[in-house]
């Protein structure tokens, strides 16, 4: 910063370097993040839309509350945090860097007096002999010292964990690295999902906003199965997947089991077991109760269809063998919901092998007579699909963050200076953290030096 520049840029710079801004941003991010945990994000359920007023809905939409973590103001807060990190590092790092790489190895008297820990020992030994002893003791008990000879005196300097002063900047850097990883992922990666019926294959998946994404190869679902514990809770969802290139299975990617917590990766694209369901078609006959005007109606699995009378039929559940559910009966059966044109809804079960029961139901409830011919149904597996080339950058950032935080909290830069002159040894030292702990270590070191220099006094 040049002093000739206007003060505006100077004060703007100071603002971006300030700790106050860091505090404000951290607390603003904390408070604003709450919004997205209370208001639904992404696909908003219709019940929620009904539960709030029009005005509120418009306000939330304008403020981007329904996708707040990607809204301009939230991204701006994150950007400001990044700017704050960069600015404060540019301001402070050069000084710290010089401090670490070019330590003060020779202290003057004023510097020595300012030290928190200081001790003086007298000794009849010669200065070179004292120097030799101290180099040995410091080397063994603390850290190998650097010796400077100046004006007939010896200056020794030893330090430990000097780089721990950089740890906090490593943490700051790690946040920027994670941001870079996240941006890389969103620019060059994708996330989507795909449903594959058993026995079929797909070459495309649905990405954001149901936009189709080409995989560049095909994936076939050979089989999907669910197993349960005795308690009835699900134990395992498993898909057997095969990767196909030009219609041929790829070696090593044939009938690969994919379960929750154990995905499959191929060419940087990963497939995760996520959901499942049934797909197929069911054939019903609809006629007047006396059997006249029969019409065939096809209903997809879990879906619905229109009836000739203007009403509708909605499929609840089907089975190709009703025996386990209704002992004594056999054959296909379907549980359906019938909507009559006047808006009434009733539930009933339609059998393939028991037309008399179907007729009974029609007579009791009124309305058309249903018959269930058969259905073809197969399972499909629902897979999450993702490609994220930025994820390794994120992990490097996370590693830097954990290492940096531990270094910043648990390591302390400790320094010891020794002056040997005219039969006296002056030892001084300080630490940039945990001064009480260093005081104890320093006192031990001084005692050791005293014991070594005058062994006669030692008992």
């Amino acid at each position, binding site marked *: 910063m040049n002093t000739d520049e206007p003060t505006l840029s100077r004060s703007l710079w100071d603002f971006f370097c300030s700790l106050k801004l860091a505090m404000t941003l951290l607390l603003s991010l904390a408070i604003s993040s709450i919004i997205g945990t209370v208001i639904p994000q992404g696909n908003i359920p219709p019940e929620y839309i009904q539960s709030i007023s029009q005005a509120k809905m418009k306000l939330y939409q304008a403020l981007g509350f329904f996708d707040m973590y990607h809204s301009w103001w939230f991204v701006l807060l994150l950007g400001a945090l990044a700017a704050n990190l960069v600015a404060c590092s540019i301001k402070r790092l050069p000084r710290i860097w010089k401090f670490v790489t070019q330590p003060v190895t020779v202290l003057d008297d004023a510097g020595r007096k300012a030290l928190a820990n200081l001790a003086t020992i007298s000794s009849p030994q010669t200065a070179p002999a004292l120097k030799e002893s101290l180099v040995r003791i410091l080397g063994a008990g603390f850290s190998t010292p650097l010796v400077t000879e100046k004006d007939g005196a010896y200056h020794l300097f030893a330090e430990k964990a000097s780089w721990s002063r950089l740890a906090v900047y490593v943490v700051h850097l790690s946040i920027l690295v994670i941001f870079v990883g996240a941006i890389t992922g969103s620019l060059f990666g994708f996330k989507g999902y795909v449903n594959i019926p058993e026995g079929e294959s797909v070459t495309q998946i649905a990405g954001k906003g149901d936009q189709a994404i080409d995989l560049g190869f095909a994936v076939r679902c050979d089989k999907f199965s669910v197993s349960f*514990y005795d308690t009835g809770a699900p134990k395992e969802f498993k898909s057997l997947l095969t990767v196909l290139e030009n219609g041929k299975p790829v070696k090593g990617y044939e009938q690969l089991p994919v379960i929750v917590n154990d995905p499959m990766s191929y060419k940087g694209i990963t497939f995760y077991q996520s959901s499942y369901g049934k797909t197929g078609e069911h054939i019903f006959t609809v006629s007047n109760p006396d059997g006249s005007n029969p019409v065939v109606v096809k209903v997809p699995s879990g879906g619905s269809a229109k009836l000739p009378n203007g009403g509708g039929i909605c499929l609840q559940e089907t089975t190709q063998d009703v025996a386990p559910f209704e002992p004594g009966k056999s054959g296909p059966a379907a549980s359906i919901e019938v909507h009559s044109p006047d808006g009434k809804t009733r539930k009933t079960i339609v059998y393939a092998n028991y037309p008399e029961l179907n007729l009974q139901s029609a007579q009791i409830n009124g309305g058309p007579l249903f018959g269930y011919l058969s259905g073809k149904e197969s399972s499909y597996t629902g897979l999450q699909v993702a490609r994220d080339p930025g994820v390794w950058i994120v992990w490097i950032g996370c590693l830097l963050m954990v290492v940096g935080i531990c270094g910043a909290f648990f390591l302390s830069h400790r320094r010891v200076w020794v002056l040997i002159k005219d039969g006296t040894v002056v030892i001084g030292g300080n630490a940039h953290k945990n001064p009480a702990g260093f005081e104890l270590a320093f006192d031990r070191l001084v005692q050791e030096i005293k014991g070594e220099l005058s062994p006669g006094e030692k008992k």
Partner: protein
Amino acid sequence: MTSSLLFNITTIAYLVSMLLFFTFLASRVATLGLLGSVAAFSGLAVQSVAIGLRWQESYAMGVGHAPLSNLYESVVFFSWTIVLIYLLLDLRYHYRVIGAFVMPFALLGMTWAQLGLSSGIEPLVPALQSNWLLYHVVTCFLGYAAFAVACGISIMYLIREAAGAATAATGNGMVGSFPPAKVLDDLNYRAIMVGFPLLTLGIVTGAAWANYAWGTYWSWDPKETWSLIVWFVYAAFLHARITRGWVGRRAAWLSVIGFAATIFCYLGVNLLLSGLHSYGG
């Protein structure tokens, strides 16, 4: 001997410990404080055995997994980590009276778990069948526990400050037995210094697990977001330490707010909000 019996003994030990600490606080008889610590650490030992036993029992049932899979197990584990962190603090700094403000958290957890939560051992749902479960839950809860201890210390700081310097100086009453304000402020920082790296590790292991299981390390799910909120609050606390005017009372409040956010992240999200992380409820 069953783990259930041992968990009941643990709860009683924590109750006895808390009562001893309270009488120590009122009477300032050093023996009571010592007994309070002895009760707390005996409880911790019994609880460690109980957790190990429950782990073994799950294997005997054929559904073997670490006892960290539902709300009951997590609350029990949370109590255990709180007493563990307090033990470490006590061994290192010897301020016994802090137990009076930390043991209530552990007792509350154990009482709720034993009386209000279903304690059956259940098989793991597919989503939790991963080794990441152990790393993620252990790091998160050790972090939470350190924040609980920091919150207890901050409450002591605020009480001491409210009682006024005069009362503290005479050395009378409850506040007289508290460590000096400066020491409390420092201990608060030290507890958070332990909790913050652990929470960071907890979030990172959670992200790694999410990426491995779902293909996305961060999806702004309420649980994830709240853990980040907690992280922001304690990051602000750490920066407050080097900001003029933020040491002492404001730092103590930040620590209390941080723990409130932690508890919401742990319980509030599961009980009040919906999301991907609904195993605890």
